[in-house]
């Protein structure tokens, strides 16, 4: 068995707002092994980004982790002080943000911004050493050396995105979180970037958490995946398995709503309704308003809701496995 790199156990996170506590992450658990790529998929607002932010504890001031544990190589991250967290950030876990356009400070050169990150964690390096490191990184992601001396607005979208990846790799992290890194780019560049990421991962033996709402990308990039809905994981398991054998009603609807290039022409099914507002406490199965075949028990919440095993390493939320 490969080494466990990241273990998240029953993570619960909520935001404190003027209208009450909004539970954004409910009882999320997953494990990532060395070299593995893990996908997190779901609609907008289902909590995937919140999970990512909690791993680095980068959430907004009014967000609190109410319970659960996050273990990085056995070390507990929840409850660490800010100064200890700062050492963990980037050095062990880094993140490629959604929208690389804005991740860069417009008045500082790209090279300087990357060197800044390296300096923070390796203060004894000389400037030359850092520059060499960046040259290496740029080569991996396919950027020319001179980009280092440029300002962000001089780069195209694709170049900025590659630079962000270089930035994320600069401190040799163990886990890289990619939060919708290609959403804002055109399809051609998207393909290139995805290939880059895969290449980098294999080259450096990183663990990757890939977050997206695009199920096709997840299929291409990941070996394990989890489907999230309304703050909790409804199905988790090997990607191939979930795609060929989706057990949860939501997962099934999700797959059926994506057009496929191969195979016969099928009529697309779309999901009615919207994801539930997370402010109200949801009784019962959170998916029931949109479930095509809800039973009384689903709506009332008397159905036992927990993840049950539906295949080898494959779990789903018990409620909707039977319906739909």
């Amino acid at each position, binding site marked *: 068995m490969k080494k466990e790199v990241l273990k998240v156990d029953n993570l619960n996170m909520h935001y404190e707002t*003027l209208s009450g506590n909004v539970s954004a992450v409910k009882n999320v658990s997953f494990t990532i092994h060395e070299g593995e790529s893990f996908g997190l998929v779901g609609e907008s607002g289902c909590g995937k980004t919140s999970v990512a932010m909690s791993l680095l504890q980068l959430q*907004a*001031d*009014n967000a609190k982790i109410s319970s659960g544990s996050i273990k990085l190589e056995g070390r507990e991250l929840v409850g660490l002080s800010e100064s200890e967290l700062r050492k963990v950030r980037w050095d062990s876990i880094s993140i490629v943000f959604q929208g690389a356009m804005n991740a860069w400070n417009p008045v500082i050169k790209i090279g300087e911004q990357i060197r800044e990150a390296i300096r923070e964690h390796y203060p004894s390096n000389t400037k030359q050493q850092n520059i060499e490191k960046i040259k290496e990184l740029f080569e991996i992601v396919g950027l020319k050396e001179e980009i280092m001396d440029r300002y962000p607005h001089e780069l195209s979208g694709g170049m900025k995105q590659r630079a962000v990846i270089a930035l994320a790799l600069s401190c040799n992290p163990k886990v890289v979180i990619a939060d919708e890194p290609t959403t804002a780019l055109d399809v051609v560049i998207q393909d290139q970037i995805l290939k880059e990421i895969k290449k980098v991962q294999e080259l450096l033996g990183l663990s990757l958490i890939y977050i997206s709402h695009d199920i096709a990308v997840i299929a291409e990039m990941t070996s394990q995946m989890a489907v999230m809905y309304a703050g909790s994981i409804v199905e988790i398991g090997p990607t191939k398995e979930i795609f060929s054998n989706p057990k949860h009603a939501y997962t099934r609807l999700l797959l059926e709503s994506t057009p496929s290039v191969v195979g016969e022409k099928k009529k697309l099914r779309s999901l009615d309704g919207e994801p539930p507002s997370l402010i109200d406490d949801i009784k019962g199965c959170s998916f029931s308003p949109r479930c095509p075949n809800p039973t009384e028990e689903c709506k009332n919440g008397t159905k036992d809701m927990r993840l049950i095993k539906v295949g080898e390493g494959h779990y789903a939320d018990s409620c909707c496995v039977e319906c739909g």
Partner: protein
Amino acid sequence: MENNEKDIRKAIRKEALRKNVNLFRSSKLGKTGLIIVAFFAFLAILQPILFLTGIWNDGVYHPVVGYDASKTEFLVVECPRDYPTEKYESRADCPAKGEINKSIIFDPNVKVGQLYEANVQPAPPSSKHILGTDSLGRDIFSQIMEGSQVAFLLGLLSATLGVAISTILGSIAAFYGGRVDAYLMRQSDLILMLPFLPLLFIISAFVELKVWHLAVVLGILGGLGGSVITIKSAALQVKVKPFVDSARITGGSRMRILFSHILPNVAPLALLFMVFSVTGAIASESVLSFLGLLNIDMSWGLMIYLSQTDGYIFSGLEYWWLILPAGLSVTFLAGGFYLVGRGLDEVFNPRLRGR
């Protein structure tokens, strides 16, 4: 169908307004400012009510021509030459409260140790005059209220005028660009070049500066000055947005685009400016009155001016009611408007709100 569309628009606007009001309420700064402004507005309205309903006697309490003829009794004393004595510590202690120095009484028949009725102005705060009276016997509190009226009138008038001018000019400069822009920029340069205070000295030499005149002068100076530049840069940001281009492609005339697209987007900034201009106007008026340049009957600046020419400024805390209420009023009202502006800023600029 037309009606339906109008109704929808109205409903959207109402909703937006409600949302904005709520946002404003959640801003501590804005709320504080609003309370202060409301307080002074209340004072401004209070005065005519007091007069009309007869609670206050016009003859006694009028801020400009009122005079309190009531007399109080004092014990006549003669202040010694050298201090300290057994009765008094220093010169400042004689005459003490309730006493009056013989040297200032004209009547030669009055002797030390007698009780003398006199009307001493300025009188300290008493139950009759909440903030005391000034050296001419006029009620200070009434003066404050009058000053409040002047401040509001002057401030709002000059601010509205100034903002109207600078918004229109700034939008035109941004929109038409080129020569028009260059001309307007140089024009505002010209205004910027003139020193404010000396300029007002000059103007006051040949124009009698009453409230209306001053408001117009301040409005024009403010409107044509640096604010044009700021509004222009804001309008420029709107101009490069895609919807302006689409408006032009669909055949909108330039004037129409200017009015229905650019102006509404610049309006929040203009509103902000207006509120801050009021602050400036109130401050300017008080400084100008203090220098004796204006011809306004009664204002806060004038109150301080009078207390200076009467020589009470260096009396320290002894005659505090002559200086403190007026000075503090200027500070608080100007600051109150500024805070309201900050609160509005939080409404219009979502990036300034709390996380």
